[in-house]
């Protein structure tokens, strides 16, 4: 088992919630979502069957059902597969087995909803265990299915139906659990497929678990571990460990990446070298830390336009960017009104509610954090620093540091 830091509590929480609920697991990229999913599999409790699936490869409802059945198959005994309930289900679905893989024939595609119900019903009815599906990249699957249908001129809206069907199944089976997670926000995908209310309903029974960066102690412990493992310094000096974890915003991916970079440098590790590496990373055109995606995804996440007071169209993404630019240059968190004023200095808008909604979404999408006083600041100082450089902004002290 790989060493995991600082996730014991969230894993414990997930197991507790799974007693009664399914989960919507949200996490910004690189925070360690996959690690947590892997840990759930590793720490599988008795009375649970945890099944992991990366749904990115799925582009039709039938493929989804095939995947479900193939993933459950290893948990089913040979007898059940040969002549028990699994075999009967297979017969009902008219499935075949080729090269060890189960497949439902393509002509059954139009009945996929019934097939999905049949499959899940059978799985849940034939075990006392709680069946937990860890579905990673679910939003991608929904997007792909939708795009396929649009391309084929279909009006099926299968993605919506999948979500509805899964919700109904969750209600029906007390031993069925689902954990939805993905690299892109599920709320964005659902909002694209349906209006806001309907989107919220299909997942309103799920408990939301947000995976945040590590706490300071765990981040430092992780840093110390990796430094020692890479033989960088035998007894990591506290300030170096603190520096690395702080500058990486306690995000595991960045900590590991930074240490990797330091590993192949010929120089002795020092705070100056760490600063130098971070500065290089923030300006490197190769964008190894994938910070550019925070900016480039704005147009995908914040689609649509609003109209200013002169009836001119303004892209929502432009307003979102204006808010982020303002927060980037501010040393202190900013109130709603301050953000509103900042946007109004660039655009002729008169819609405070729209700004509040945008701010909420920016929090959901891990751009910003809201503090107890209802003020907003960048969620990750690293992203803020990058943003200042990428947008050519000057910080509050007149330099490009947050």
């Amino acid at each position, binding site marked *: 088992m790989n060493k995991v830091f600082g996730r014991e509590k969230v894993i414990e929480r997930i197991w507790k919630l799974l007693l009664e609920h399914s989960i919507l697991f949200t996490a910004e990229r690189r925070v360690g979502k996959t690690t947590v999913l892997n840990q759930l599999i590793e720490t599988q409790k008795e009375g649970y069957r945890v099944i992991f699936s990366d749904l*990115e490869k799925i582009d039709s409802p039938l493929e989804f059902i095939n995947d479900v059945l193939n993933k459950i198959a290893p948990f089913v005994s040979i007898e059940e597969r040969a002549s028990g309930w699994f075999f009967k289900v297979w017969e009902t679905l008219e499935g075949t087995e080729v090269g060890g893989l189960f497949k439902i024939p393509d002509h059954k595609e139009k009945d996929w909803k019934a097939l999905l119900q049949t499959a899940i019903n059978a799985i849940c009815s034939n075990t006392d265990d709680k069946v937990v599906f860890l579905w*990673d990249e679910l939003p991608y699957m929904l997007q792909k299915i939708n795009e396929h249908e649009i391309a084929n001129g279909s009006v099926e809206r299968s993605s919506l139906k999948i979500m509805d069907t899964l919700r109904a199944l969750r209600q029906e089976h007390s031993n069925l659990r689902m954990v939805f997670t993905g690299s892109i926000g599920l709320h964005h995908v659902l909002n694209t497929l349906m209006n806001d209310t309907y989107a919220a309903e299909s997942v309103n029974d799920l408990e939301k678990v947000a995976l945040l960066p590590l706490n300071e102690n765990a981040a430092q412990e992780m840093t110390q571990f990796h430094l020692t493992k890479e033989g960088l310094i035998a007894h990591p000096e506290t300030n170096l460990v603190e520096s690395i974890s702080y500058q990486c915003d306690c995000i595991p991916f960045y900590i590991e990446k930074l240490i*990797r970079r330091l*590993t192949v*440098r010929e120089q002795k590790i020092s705070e100056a070298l760490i600063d130098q590496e971070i500065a290089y990373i923030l300006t490197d055109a*190769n964008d190894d830390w*994938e910070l550019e995606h925070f900016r480039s995804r704005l147009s995908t996440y914040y689609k649509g336009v609003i109209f200013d007071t002169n009836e001119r169209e303004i892209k929502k993404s432009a307003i979102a960017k204006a808010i982020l630019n303002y927060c980037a240059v501010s040393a202190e968190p900013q109130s709603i009104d301050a953000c509103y004023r900042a946007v109004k200095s660039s655009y002729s808008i008169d819609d405070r509610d729209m700004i509040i909604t945008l701010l909420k979404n920016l929090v959901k999408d891990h751009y910003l954090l809201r503090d107890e006083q209802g003020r907003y600041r960048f969620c990750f100082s690293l992203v803020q620093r990058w943003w200042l450089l990428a947008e050519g902004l000057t910080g509050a002290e007149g330099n490009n540091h947050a």
Partner: protein
Amino acid sequence: MHDMQHISAYTPSNTDPEILEKIFVQRHKLLAKTVAWCEESILTDKKNNLLFIGPRGSGKTHFISMVVNRLRNKPDLQEKMIIIWLGEDDVITSLVDLTLFIIERLVKIDPDSFNKDCLEQARGQKTEMVADIILHSITEQIGMRTILLVKENMSDVFSGLKDTGQKKLRAYLQEKNNIAILASSQKLFSGVSSRDEAFFGFFDIHHLKVLKTEDAKQLISNIAALNQDQRLVDFLASPQGCYRVRALHHLAGGNHRLYVELSAFLTTESLDDFVSALTKLADNLTPYFQERVRSLPPQQGKIVQKLCELQGATPVKTIAEETFIGERSVAKQLGDLARNGYVISHKRGKQSYYEMAEPLMRLALEVKNSQGQPLKLVASLLRTWFSDEELQKNAEKFNSLSSDYRKAALSIDKELLVSINNKIAEQIVLGIDTNDYERIIAASSEIINGPQTDGDPLIQRVNALYSRGYSYHHLGKIELALQDLTAIITLPDVPVDQKAKALLSRSVTYDGKGEAELELQDLTTIITLQDAPVELKAKALLNRSITYNQKGETEQALQSVMAVIDMPNVSKDTITKALFYLPELYFKLLQIDKAQLALKTAFEKAEKSNEYYPSNTGGVLLAINQLGSSFWQKQMTWILALYADYDALDHLGAALIYSISCFVEDESLASSFKKWQQLWQEQAEQYQEMLLALQVLQAAVLAVEQKNDKPLMSLPKEVRELVLPLLVKVLP
């Protein structure tokens, strides 16, 4: 001739692993780490998927071959690891292809453990199912083992997989966690760099750096050692060898393949000659470069050939006119060529200039068209430029300082290794080898601060002070360097030679601080020091001459340098420097006949093989310039003929180029720059070897007049890069 070991410049994976290890340079840490990461992938659940990015010839295959070889030599991995290396001939057009290659390799590696029965089951199935079936079979068969999938040109694999295949593969890797990838690519590709793609963020990407000059030298030296050519190894360690490699690096850049290719035929003589080495290298590489041009679409090939002909950076419009291709098409094709690393562009106002990215490619492809003249002229210039010390900043004094320092520092390990605590000695030697001055300081301080086991404590102390002072100097801590040198000088009972050496070094340090009086004091002390070594006295006299000259005390300077020339038992290097320094002083004293005689004498008396033959050509040119324009024509005619007679026109050309900086730095000379250039043009154009220098001079004059670098675009890239720093004061 030694038996040359076979080292494939194009297929390192065919080279004996031991040879690859012996010649490996630069990336030792990265190699060790990569092996460790692969090991982690095999022994644990953590899969490190590694992608190494580097242009053609940057050593990717060599690196990956070494990783694989090292892994194969680890007995504890063999049961858990299966290495599948997909070659260039394994063309992958889909996920099915990839899975087929993997399973076929598995069966080939171990037919008793693996089978491809699943292929029978997969026949007749839909394509989407086939890959799933084969992957399922692979999973079952490999059990708890991990496949290390090795692939170069990974971008081709991604092109073949396309979006669906990539997503399926990504999902499989994520779910089964039984494959780790070790891959390389010439550049980043959208499959890994585009946010929308499945593999975005999947790989741990490392960009391989090009060789620096030191690394290039080490690579050539390693190959020479392998071929038991100790002469070449020694030559490379010498200052002259370093200069040659610097010249080579300026032209060839940091491309591993070029140096491996060069090493196949390089000898001390050919490297020293330089022109012949470069000509042969270009000749050997021509088929490779021609193949690359042939692989381009026709229009792009035509453009490349035209750019090779045109030499300098050329506007798009001109390229279009010369190739008879529409301007828009040319612009588009140039964009593609730039993206693929064939050309580079420079934007000047609204115009974009393009030129070949690799000077060596340009020169090699042009060899046939112009009998190799451009290559020879450039090679000749670079050979001189990087070896002529007077063209380097603070050349005379600083270089002698650093070489003396280095020799003294290096002597520690020979003299004191038995007596000093070995660990300290090791640290000093390691510090010298890696230019880790902090390490040298720390180790030297240990000796200085406490007596060591055996041996002469005074000698230990003196040497330690010297190496610490050397290190302080390199770190710019001049006051501390002076302190250590002063400590040597004032040590009671310090041997005369050590004192003289320290005085000389301190004088150079004072010179660097602009403290001429203190410098002269130290030099005079050496000169008058009884029993000081002759060589050190000679050096002190020469340095004193230079300093007097800089102060305008030319008569005093003349006396000092004459004393060197008349001194017996002085080294050839010092005598040669003195002989070539004298003419400048006579010119400054307006004793033209004596100056001319002195320079002729220098050429006659000095040995052609000496490093400083000739030297101070720049000083002589400056002195001629200062005579006034009425003298120029005659002196130009004379000096051209003299240098031609002694086959040294390359030095004159290099010095002439360097003289540009004098016109730029001294505003009083600026107005005469054009006349200077025009006269040289008239006098020198009959000499083939001077043509490049004349071209540079003309471009420089225009650049100064126009106050922009556009006129320099007509110069070849490798020459322009030498000239630009000289004009930095006048260009925006």
